[in-house]
């Protein structure tokens, strides 16, 4: 005998098929195919579920075994109260707050609500799985621990790292060094103590570790509230100057990546020229013009083969009212190398300033930049 649920699903299947036929006959245009496919898909889905439902008799246990609903594990009362509804409530409140304030609050609240739903659902299911409370806890763990452990570990480590980074950012540069050494030394000392006194119990070690973690996070929060120290920004090198300036300090002076170099710019005592990258042909030329594809970023290596420091400056044009586009290396020491990445956005004809490679502020010697 078919159950009510099965009848409902079979009916839905039949209605979907009839609707698909009628839709296909009556509706024209590009939407007709989509509609028929949608309705037929619904019919297939309903049919599948109806078949399963008939097979399992609508999961109607009393129909198969009268009275079982009073004796089965699912009929038992839950073993204890659950905290997840409260978490879900906080999440829903967060959703409301996030909807009118910041999207990030909404997203976090959404994650909290989803997590609470999943946890609550699995807890409720596992508590009714059998009469054995221990077994129920085990199967809950099997389902959720693979999710819970990595997430909690990530959150815990994230909080630690974030807290530590806030501490280091708020401390002065000198204090930061000493702090880093002190924390490292404390960690090492703790590990040595644990290694020597093997009698220390797991709980003691876990307690001390937790206290240390809370301390780091707590001080980190306090540091975040206090704000980070003033961090001095490195000024950009002054491209149209031949003097070493503040911006040259700390700037990289050796190419970090010489693969795929477009051209090597060489400065000797007698010449200033370009050699095309990846071409060692017989016609390897000391170019005094460099053809650069428009709007493609290319990299240059600057070889300073003189006995004086020098800077490679690329003047990449002044178009309309915009400021002149200038890029340069830091001051490159004698017999040193510098690296420069340039992008010419327009052709020299459109520029009111020359487009060329030069040495700092000196307009000559120069390598003309051509942009075809």
């Amino acid at each position, binding site marked *: 005998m078919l159950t009510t649920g099965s009848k409902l699903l079979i009916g839905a299947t039949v209605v979907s098929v009839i609707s698909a036929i009628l839709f296909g006959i009556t509706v024209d245009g590009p939407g007709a195919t989509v509609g028929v496919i949608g309705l037929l898909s619904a019919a297939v889905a309903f049919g599948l579920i109806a078949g399963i439902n008939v097979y399992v008799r609508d999961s109607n246990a009393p129909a198969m075994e009268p009275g079982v609903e009073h004796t089965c594990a699912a009929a038992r009362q839950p073993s204890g109260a659950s905290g997840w509804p409260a978490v879900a409530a906080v999440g829903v409140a967060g959703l409301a707050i996030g909807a009118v304030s910041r999207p990030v609050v909404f997203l976090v609240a959404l994650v909290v609500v989803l997590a609470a739903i999943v946890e609550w659902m699995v807890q409720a299911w596992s508590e009714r799985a059998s009469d054995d409370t221990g077994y129920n806890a085990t199967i809950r763990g099997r389902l959720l621990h693979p999710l819970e452990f990595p997430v909690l570990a990530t959150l815990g480590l994230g909080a630690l790292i974030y807290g530590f980074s806030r501490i280091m950012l708020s401390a002065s540069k000198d204090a930061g060094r000493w702090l880093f050494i002190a924390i490292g030394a404390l960690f090492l000392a703790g590990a040595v103590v644990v290694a020597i006194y093997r009698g220390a119990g797991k709980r003691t070690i876990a307690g001390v570790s937790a206290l240390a973690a809370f301390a780091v996070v707590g001080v980190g929060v306090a540091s975040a509230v206090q704000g980070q120290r003033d961090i001095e920004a490195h000024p950009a090198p002054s491209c149209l100057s031949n003097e070493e300036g503040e911006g040259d300090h700390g700037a990289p002076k050796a190419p970090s990546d010489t693969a795929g170099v477009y051209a090597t710019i060489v400065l000797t005592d007698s010449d200033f020229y370009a050699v*095309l990258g990846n071409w060692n042909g017989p016609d390897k030329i000391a170019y005094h013009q460099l053809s650069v594809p428009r709007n493609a970023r290319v990299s240059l290596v600057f070889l300073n083969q003189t006995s004086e420091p020098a800077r490679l400056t690329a003047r990449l044009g002044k178009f309309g009212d915009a400021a002149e586009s200038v890029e340069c290396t830091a001051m490159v020491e004698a017999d040193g190398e510098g690296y420069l990445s340039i992008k010419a956005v327009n052709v020299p004809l459109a520029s009111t300033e020359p487009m060329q490679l030069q040495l700092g502020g000196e307009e000559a010697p120069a390598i003309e930049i051509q942009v075809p």
Partner: protein
Amino acid sequence: MLAHLPRRRAAAALAILGFLVAGCAKNAPQDIFRPAGSNAREIDDGLGGQKYIFILAGVVAAIVIAVVLFIIFKFKDRGQDIPEQTHGNPMLEIGMTILPAIILITVAIPTVAKIFNLAKSDDAACVVNVTGQQWWWEYDYPVQNCGGIEITQPIVTSGEMVIPAGVNVQLRITSRDVIHSYWIPRLNGKRDAVPGSLQPLRMQADQPGIYTGQCTEFCGLSHARMRQAVVALDSDSFATWVANQEEAYTSPTDALALEGEGQFISQCARCHQINGLTNSDGTPVLANPEQNLVSGAAPNLTNLMTRTGFAGFTFDLITDACREKLWNAPSEEFSALYLQGVWMDSPAGAEYPVCFNETALREWLRNAPGMKPMFVDPNNLSSTGGLYRGMPNLGLTEAQIDQLIAYLLERK
């Protein structure tokens, strides 16, 4: 013979035969087993060459498949007793380790040597910068002596790269947007075009002819329509081509074409450059593709009608008959035929009075994204900050298209 086989086996045999016969196509312009230049031959020939490795790999595959099939059929479960179970056979295991190692070493040594040979650029006598973007290739020729021919000002073209036959040309490949890959199968292997980096690739064609390829790194919506060609010309013809590319711009004299020049300035010059084109006040007309396109570049159309294809070499600028004749021309006739370019009036010696594929260009001007899918819906450009990926539908009238075609036909 197949009639004697059971139906299933006959079907399987037919399927295998179909696969084998598919490799027999004569008109396969991208056939890697028909090298047409020294670099492709380097890949093809010798102990580490693809031909021998293909055969070796085929033999190994055949042996493995045969052994697997033998085991499947020999030990198929027919209700027989389970055979005696054994574990370990040192001699067999050592042999099965050493044999593949020997095969791999045999293949690796000459292959590595070939890689180094292909990376050489000592004998490259010309250099071309190749820049990829969605979905076409740009070629620019710096000022240089290219295989004995002086290039006195930078040349820029797109779709098809023209090189002198018999000369090793060094390509310097990069990209403006995403990663692409340049491949002319009959001339050399593939090389990725990576934004911000320069990848070298040597290219040489023994004989004049056209050698086609295809972008081989998925690069977006019209990746399949990002094609390319290398056109090799004999030395004299290459010199003629260079001289033609360097010729100064001349304004059209025909009234319709003159109107087309105005249309070009107002409709097309936002992205496309025609070198030498000036406004009515004499100031140069300069394209600003960086303000309109994600890649920041559009094909330079200065000498459009010297090419045989357009829109990333996807569509022909010449008619099917002319294309057939050009592509199948003997190498000694090819260069002269190519230099004729696209014509409307029969030049001396031309077999066909009209070679211009007007239908394709007209349709392109009418609705470019209808021919080649591109991200050019003006209402859906928020993700690109209002910039297009490709050519949008400009909504040109038929009269405007007539004028533009008349103008573009003179760009040769």
